[in-house]
């Protein structure tokens, strides 16, 4: 699969499971997109590309309320969480987030919306191609919490009717932002 078709495959698969996938032109556009749709305070934990691009400050500058500390207290009331992604898997529309740091897990589980910034250069074709990255992450981290995230939280436990957002985020927004990071080991 070529680069372009991998990205298209990812968009189609992620869209099919209810994720919103948009292409944004640079970090500022990404910030504008998130700020406009957060629906409340934004949990913005530290992650390497986020720190590098100064996301928390930019969100504040865009007028958003940013939660960047004391996450256990504040994350439950937040409108959104913002994280990066280590990489993604086209076949299933999955984003992979190494979220060993607790704040990343809180940001991606508790708020109603989860925004993920993903560099489209970090999309692999399928789970087979994902394994080497997963292994490298395990080698690097003595303790690890790695998450495959595919669409929003869902259940079909009552009469098999698919219902979105039972415990985790009700909305998953994936922002394809080229130039963010090409390192599969960081988010």
């Amino acid at each position, binding site marked *: 699969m070529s680069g372009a078709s991998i990205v298209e495959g990812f968009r189609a698969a992620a869209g099919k499971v209810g994720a919103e996938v948009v292409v944004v032109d640079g970090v500022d556009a990404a910030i504008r997109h998130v700020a406009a749709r957060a629906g409340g305070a934004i949990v913005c934990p530290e992650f390497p590309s986020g720190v590098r691009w100064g996301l928390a400050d930019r969100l504040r500058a865009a007028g958003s309320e940013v939660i960047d500390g004391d996450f256990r207290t504040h994350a439950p009331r937040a409108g959104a969480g913002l994280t990066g992604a280590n990489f993604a898997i086209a076949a299933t529309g999955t984003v992979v987030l190494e979220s060993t740091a607790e704040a990343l897990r809180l940001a991606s589980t508790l708020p109603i919306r989860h925004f993920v910034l993903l560099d489209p250069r970090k999309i692999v074709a399928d*789970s087979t191609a994902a394994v080497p990255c997963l292994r490298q992450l395990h080698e690097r981290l003595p303790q690890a*919490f790695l998450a495959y995230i595919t669409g929003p939280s869902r259940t079909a436990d009552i009469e098999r009717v698919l219902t979105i957002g039972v415990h985790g985020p009700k909305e998953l927004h994936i922002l394809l932002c080229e130039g963010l990071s090409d390192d599969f080991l960081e988010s």
Partner: protein
Amino acid sequence: MSKQRTRAYKARIDQALATPRLQDTLHRFADAYLLAREAAFAGHDFEALRTGIAAMKDEVRERREEYIARFTRNAKAAGATVYLARTAQEANAYIVSLARQRRVKLVTKSKSMASEETHLNQALEEAGVRVLETDLGEWIIQLAGQRPSHMVMPAIHMSKEEVAELFGKVTGKVEPAEIPHLVQLAREQLRQGYLDADMGISGANLAVAETGGIALVTNEGNARLVTTLPKIHVALVGIEKLVPTLEDAHKVIDVLPKNATGQLSTSYVSWIRGAVPCGDAPKELHIVLLDNGRSALAESPHCRDALRCIKCGACANVCPVYQTVGGHVFGHIYISAIGIILTAFCHGLENAAELVRTCIGCRACVAVCPSKIDLESIILHLREVLGEEEGIGAGKALVFKRIMRNRTLFHTMIRAASLLQKPVTRGERTIRHLPLFFAGLTEWRSLPAIADKPLRDQWPSLPQQVDRPRYRVAFFAGCLNDFVYPELGHDLVRVLNRLGVTVSFPKEQNCCGVPALYSGDRDTATALAGQNVAALLADDPDFVVTTCPTCTMALQRDIKDLLRDHPRWAAKAERLAAITLDVSRFIVEKCDGGQALAGLAAPEKVTYHDSCHLKRGAGVWREPRRLLADSGRELVEMGHADRCCGFGGSYSFTSHPDIARRILGDKVADIAATGAACVAMDCPGCLMQIRGGLDKQGPPVRVAHTITLLAETLA
């Protein structure tokens, strides 16, 4: 004890059958499941995928001590505490004691069948610890005080109205029975639980030896919260969840959601290795590896393949019996086909004693199992074990041991029965009513009468005309063909003669042994196998052909197994298995695709019913369709063509007639919906069942064996 147990079991069946909403729900689910599953596997080679999983799991089973040690070493290195529990009691005691030591007041749980297996909630609550299930389905059944009726969808048996009523008791208000509202209510009610809990308990879908980590495959996201928020995380993991590497883990993850719910992937797969941060300190992670009968299962040569199970629940989804009675009848803690086996090993044979008979033997589960477990064979073996322990019933024992093994006596008795039935047949070929306590048997299907003269007695006067024979075949008729439908033998001879084949009828042939084997009497089945091998190979035929797929399976598969350790018979059984073919495959493969029969029929609209043992036993389903279409008929497919008709031999007569009746009702509806004038099939058992059902409750559709339809074009 066992009579009381059987009465309780029958009462559960009656209750389930009296709940039409349950059948509706499960039927609709089954239909949607099949479509979703097919779409999910599009472009994937299911056979290759499941062969890969089976091989990987078998290797883990063989070297399990090594993998347990490796997993434990790596998990400990990452800061986890690992405890190997030999029994459910040990697992519960460890977790309860930990909860006590840490003064745990509230536990939040994500879905774990292993904890259902050990009755962990009960153990914790007895120790004064409150337990909150957070998986929506698990929470519902916790509130209802029930157990899961499905491995993946625990509350599938409940309606939204019932759920609303349960939730109303929690909130103290009347809650509307609207699903989005109920889901939102669960979100709000359970959210505080995660934050307040002192301990989170999860299961695991995988334990990866390479990393010492576990993986959780979920949709709701509750497992992520359960494993993140409380200070202590306990993962209760059956040792069968071990996989060697991350590649192996992905073999399971690639298949599990597709086969469980028709999803390409679940919303979340969480890979957790070691004591990850929790607040200001590392989390306290305990992994309880649960044996509880799994090692015994690994040591059982007949049953050990069941350890390959990845707990997808597909065997329930496709099971016609499950669709009819649900998991509270067809299950103990684990449900449906795999549930029978796991119950026997995790909860004791006594708890599986009724369940081994619930299976109708249609092999639908075998076809969809992602780990390639021959569930039906294992269930048959457990039936044998139980037959030896509890007996198979005095009546059956008498018939099998004293009568069937003595062919002359057996056949004399059938002949006598043909005379005795005269008062009810009134000289006709169909019994529509039976007197007294047999009446129930013909209430929903008529039954065929035993023929005046069995095929074996008609054979010497059956003319055969073949100028230059290309094959000499022996015909194994089976009891139904011989004594009930002798005309099928005439049809077979007519068709095969036209194709240049002479047919003999070895008179010493006896019952194929399946009724005895399926009832748990292996000794009788073995005795019959020996008799049939001798009879069928006596004249050294080129092939042995059959018109009954259950007999085909007996000759192709069971006799090899039954006679494996008999030095006199083993090689001959192999030979017989190798030359046995059902007649449609014989025609297609050995007689030029049956071209001599093509284009002779009128363009009648015909639909085809796949017999379980023909499609999923012998792997034959294209051949009869091809012969019927080539003959000039218009072939239309019915819905669920390969779903069991509910015959199942003694299943529909003695063990579970009420379930068989419902399954037949489904089949009759599918046939009627096609508008076909005729339904074809290749099994005299299905013929009896479907003809009887259409006769009593369906439209006037003709029911015929394929060989009959082929023969009549030659008239």
